[in-house]
């Protein structure tokens, strides 16, 4: 009995190793043919970055039970810090051509990994300050307060007073991109891995306890404010890094990039994937980002027998997308994964269950006939 269990864990470990190898091979293939597949690569990269932010939002919303809508704000902080710290010094004059650059940052440059860490730390520091008043609020009120904060950050970035640092409404460009695909996906995977490890640690259990019952959590000797603050800071740290990664991916940013729509995109991914499921958030990030692109078909005019179908025009894609979302939320109200996580055993059950489902239906049909 124990032996078979051991065998099974070894088997699952081999599967995981295999999946990792396949992923690396695909990445290697895309890296070699990057110019040919640039469109697909950009979708995948954006998905991976959204996955990081979605998992960090899930850490807060799904695991700690704090509904925050400040993601875009923290992403903006992270993105601008990475941009300011990594744009090559020689290109800065052309980036800040309108207002000039503040001498304080003119020669400030550091490698992208250090810039990402600083981005995360600054976002976390701002979250720590903001958490003191805001985390005393509950549910909807917390969401509104963080939403307001996120808009303030955006307004501050676009403010003319900061023109010489953030370049105001002109945005920042010439941000160096990822050196290669492995760095891009490796960083995203590392962030998600760290959050998974945290969620499965003793601290993750504390977060879940707070989500389940705050009064009981306090009776277990857990200081609510301390742990909520901790979850908020950690989530913001990774959101900041996610913003930095997005800046590296987009290579040019402006304050409009980080409007409330970005937060809604992330929220959508979290809800669609399943609140409280990391696998769900990752899956959701890829599905939503890729789905938007697949649906581009609806934006092109369609002719059937020489007659143009009137609905098919630019913008129709988003209508179809929204309808699909409504369908998902109506029929899978707990998201794709609910609050379950991926496991090989679970996948095995799912695959084995598919033929059963068909045969059962058939049997039922036979009986009625």
């Amino acid at each position, binding site marked *: 009995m124990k032996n078979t269990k051991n065998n099974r864990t070894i088997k699952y470990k081999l599967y995981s190793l295999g999946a990792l190898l396949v992923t690396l091979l695909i990445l290697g293939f895309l890296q070699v043919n990057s110019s040919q597949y640039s469109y697909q690569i950009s979708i995948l990269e954006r998905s991976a970055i959204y996955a990081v932010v979605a998992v960090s939002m899930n850490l807060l919303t799904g695991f700690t039970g704090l509904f925050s809508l400040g993601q875009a704000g923290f992403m903006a902080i992270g993105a601008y810090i990475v941009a300011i710290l990594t744009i090559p010094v020689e290109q800065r004059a052309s980036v800040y051509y309108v207002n000039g650059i503040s001498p304080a940052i003119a020669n400030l440059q550091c490698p992208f990994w250090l810039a990402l860490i600083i981005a995360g730390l600054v976002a976390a520091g701002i979250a720590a300050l903001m958490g003191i008043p805001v985390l005393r609020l509950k549910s909807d009120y917390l969401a509104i307060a963080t939403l307001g904060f996120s808009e303030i950050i955006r307004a501050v970035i676009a403010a003319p007073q900061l023109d010489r640092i953030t370049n105001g409404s002109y945005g920042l460009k010439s941000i160096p991109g990822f050196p290669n695909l492995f760095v891009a996906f490796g960083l995203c995977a590392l962030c998600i891995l760290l959050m998974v*490890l*945290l969620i499965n640690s*003793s601290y993750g*259990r*504390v977060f879940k306890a707070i989500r389940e*019952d705050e009064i009981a959590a306090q009776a277990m000797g*857990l200081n609510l404010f301390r742990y909520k603050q901790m979850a908020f800071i950690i989530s913001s740290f990774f959101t900041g890094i996610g913003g930095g990664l997005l800046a590296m991916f987009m290579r040019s940013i402006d304050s409009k990039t980080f409007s409330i729509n970005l937060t809604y995109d992330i929220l959508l991914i979290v809800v669609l994937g399943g609140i409280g499921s990391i696998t769900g958030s990752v899956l959701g990030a890829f599905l939503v980002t890729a789905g938007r692109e697949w649906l581009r078909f609806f934006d092109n005019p369609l002719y059937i027998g020489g007659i143009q179908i009137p609905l098919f025009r630019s913008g129709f894609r988003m209508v179809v997308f929204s309808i699909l979302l409504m369908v998902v939320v109506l029929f899978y109200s707990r998201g794709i994964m609910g609050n379950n996580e991926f496991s090989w055993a679970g996948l095995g059950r799912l695959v084995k269950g598919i033929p059963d489902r068909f045969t059962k239906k058939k049997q039922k049909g036979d009986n009625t006939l």
Partner: protein
Amino acid sequence: MTEHTNNKPNILHLENVTMQFGGVVAVNGLSLDVNEGEIVALIGPNGAGKTTAFNCVTGIYEPTYGQVQFQEETIFSNMPKGKMRKMYAGSVHPRTVPIVKNTPDAITQKGIARTFQNIRLFGQLSVFDNVLIAKHMRAKQNVFSATLRLNHKEEERMRSETMALLEEQNLAHLKDEIASSLPYGLQRRLEIARALATEPKLLLLDEPAAGMNPQETQDLTDFIKQIRESYHLTVFMIEHHMDLVMQISDRIYVLDFGKLIAHGTPEEIQNNEKVIEAYLGVSDDAED
């Protein structure tokens, strides 16, 4: 009337504890003592202020006036402030006292654990995780060591202690069940096990036998006696099942309309006229 326990050191001391919500005085000048190793019951009709008194001890409420001491240390001390100074309607005239406050988690860390009248388990988590969470408070680790798994020894110790506790409480076979799926009696027992996992010196039980049948109540009676012995606990409980209360309590306090109306041994309480009156409402019925 409590001479036989006076030689034991005091563990919980309430002095003139008053809790007023708006114009309603829920607990009015309550003074009581619990000594180490005792089982003390707090009884009274519905709405007498028993749970409010518990909440004043565990920090869920801040008493409007009065002091609470745990092991000779003042854990709460308060006097009416602001608007409450005019509204204060407690029967004890407030003196000026230093202000001491604690949050519920700090109280648990000092060694007072509690259960709730309406069971508060972490419903979506497993039985094992419910107890394991209680171990977090006393674990030596930080968020970095826990994330990077540098605390694996500590984690293993927490897990093995949790498993040992579940085995002692006969819950080990249910460890992977989701807490909210357990039958009511087991949920109560799990809640007590979880409270024990915080390594308390004083255990507050808020109606542990609520909703139990006579057999389950008897089991619970034995269980409370047994945990007192094996964990060297002091138990302070609110309970309505009189047979349970009379069987295991060393002393009983009776609360009615927020005021202490009697206290003494079970025999003394059974024969106390005020208590009988409070429970049966003799004088009210006579007037009707």
